[in-house]
């Protein structure tokens, strides 16, 4: 029971770091979009006959700040919870 608490603390801490890093990495890879998350982008094209400009939709996941902030937030919460468990474990079993 005692070692598993230590393992759980480490696991939650690692999960928190992974979530925060993964969210940041995806956001950076998506072009550091400072707007809302998008599931498609629009490329403007021109119809040759009519001259009408029209948006051509291309499916693409572009994470925005509404993806980054909750991701980092969840990661930080996990890191604090994991660290708190490890600290409590250390205090309990300190020589």
């Amino acid at each position, binding site marked *: 029971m005692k070692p598993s608490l230590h393992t759980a603390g480490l696991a939650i801490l690692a999960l928190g770091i992974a979530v925060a890093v993964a969210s940041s990495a995806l956001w950076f890879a998506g072009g550091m979009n400072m*707007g809302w998350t998008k599931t498609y982008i629009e490329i403007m094209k021109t119809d040759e006959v009519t001259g009408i400009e029209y*948006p051509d939709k291309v499916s693409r996941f572009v994470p925005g700040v509404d993806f980054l902030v909750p991701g980092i937030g969840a990661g930080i919460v996990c890191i604090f919870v994991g660290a708190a468990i490890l600290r409590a474990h250390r205090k309990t079993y300190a020589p």
Partner: protein
Amino acid sequence: MKFATLLAITLASATISNAQPVAFDFKDPKGVNNIVFKLDAPLESINGTTNGISGTITADPAAPEKIAGKIVVDATTLTVPNPLMQEHMLGDEWLSTKAHPEITFEVKEVLNPKKSGNEGTADVKGAFTLKGVTKEITVPVKVTYLPGRLADRTNGKQQGDLLVVRTNFQINRGDYGIKQGENLDKVSDVIDISLSLAGAAAK
């Protein structure tokens, strides 16, 4: 010289007097016809589009003031790039598209028509209906008549003419019962709307 001038005037008069209003169908299988709408918001402006456009405009190429007809937009086809925003936009609190599936503009009157070659401009007064609320608005319209160009668009399968209609105008969402006076800190009341449409008249 006098004879040539007289002949030209006669031919022009005959052309104008014989011109008949032509019905242009704005359902576009190519998906080029589009409406773009934009609302300012703090993080970034909300830009949406739709291709779900249909309707018929009857136009007399020789008399631009004789435009009549109705453009219909399938409200359920309005899209924004954020899925959650899309769900809210079409939902009961905003556009309520289940109860009000159509957005329409019906031409009532054409004011200040000006014609230059195959192009014309006018202020078109019409009945704009959004979320079940109809208001009379006047929008500046630019019309381009492209005789015989339908074949170019259909790889020769259909002969006929094209009518390109462009307009930009603004409405206030509150005027149409869309969260009147609410959420102004998140989404502006003013909606910028741009239409770029081509109608086809097959012969």
